[in-house]
């Protein structure tokens, strides 16, 4: 059965990480599992709106092309589903993830481990000394959030290289309680007060990184994906 998830997944694979893809499909909810040929026009528009945002943020190249491929696969332009194989192959060549490391975060000492790993990874791929400290700090914040609020989760470090140079992608993911909409508003407004910290961790991370996306669903978990680039 050709579901939204399988069709879009084939197009995005190689360009957008599996974890980010999963968070995209999580956001689509039940729509992701729906067969492509049973989508209503409203469904298609909803899926495309979500995909456009995510692809523009995460695809490091050819995002317009990818979005067009997705639209074709969903039959959004009326020409019916076409295979995304060629777009997928091009995406895989362009993305060039050079290495990936996934670290489990379960207790406070894992925060220090993740931080050091992130630091050495940043130095290894040639980010500047200051940027490397920023990387370590961001990972520290994200890992701390996992330990404090979700109990356990993972931090994935992906060294990527594209036409803009080296970059380090950090994906902090958990299946914890998620963040409620109202709380999220407080967090971005800077009025959120936490018991244990300053309540500014996420805001701080957002300010430190070059690209940032938060995916959260109450009861299902939170994924923060962010990217550090070399020189700006």
């Amino acid at each position, binding site marked *: 059965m050709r579901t939204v998830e399988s069709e879009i997944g084939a197009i995005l694979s190689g360009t957008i990480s599996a974890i980010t893809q999963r968070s995209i499909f999580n956001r689509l909810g039940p729509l992701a599992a729906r067969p492509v040929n049973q989508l209503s026009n409203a469904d298609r528009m909803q899926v495309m709106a979500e995909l456009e945002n995510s692809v523009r943020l995460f695809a490091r190249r050819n995002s317009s092309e990818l979005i067009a491929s997705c639209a074709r696969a969903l039959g959004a332009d009326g020409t019916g589903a076409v295979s995304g194989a060629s777009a997928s192959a091009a995406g895989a060549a362009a993305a060039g993830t050079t290495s990936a490391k996934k670290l489990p975060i379960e*207790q*406070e*000492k894992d*925060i*220090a481990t993740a*931080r050091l790993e992130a*630091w050495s990874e940043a130095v290894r791929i040639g980010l500047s*000394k*200051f940027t*490397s*400290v*920023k990387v*370590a*700090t961001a990972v*520290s*914040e994200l890992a*701390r959030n996992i330990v404090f609020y979700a109990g356990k989760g993972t931090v994935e470090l992906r060294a990527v290289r594209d036409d803009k140079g080296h970059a380090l992608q950090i994906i902090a993911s958990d299946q914890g309680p998620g963040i409620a909409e109202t709380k999220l508003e407080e967090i971005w407004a800077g009025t959120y007060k936490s018991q*244990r*910290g*300053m309540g*500014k*961790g996420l*805001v*701080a*991370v957002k*300010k*430190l990184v070059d690209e940032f996306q938060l995916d959260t669903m109450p009861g299902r978990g939170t994924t923060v994906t962010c990217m550090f680039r070399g020189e700006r």
Partner: protein
Amino acid sequence: MARSSDPEWAPPAPRALLTVCNPNSDFATGAATLNDQQIPIIQIRNCLLVSIQTELHDRLALDLQESLMEKVRVTDAKGVILDVSAVEVIDSYITRILNDIGKSVRFMGAVCYIVGIRPAVAMTLIEMGVELDSVNTALTLDLALEKLELLQS
């Protein structure tokens, strides 16, 4: 120290060396690493010096804060200096701990100095928009002592 030229002179035993780590703490990182975690508080004249060399976590930070306040009360210390030169990354949680310690020290009538913040750490804190506003800062331990000395005269 001029006295070090005297061959008979030996440094006195530290007057106030105490371990703030509670070995019975339920902190889950395991007993082996726990016992290595000690944050000594050292008295220099009427200042207390703390060098943070380990990973701070809730329990340890709270213990440190409590012992420091008690120590300020007992020794009538005028200043507390926290050396963070061994801390490579200061995130918003650590900032909160440092600010809390600074505030509690201030409530006790003493002045709190943070010394040894690295340039990259300072840059990161600025970019993150978190404030270390409940403590004073000095570049080095020496300069902090100098500033505290000035305060007392």
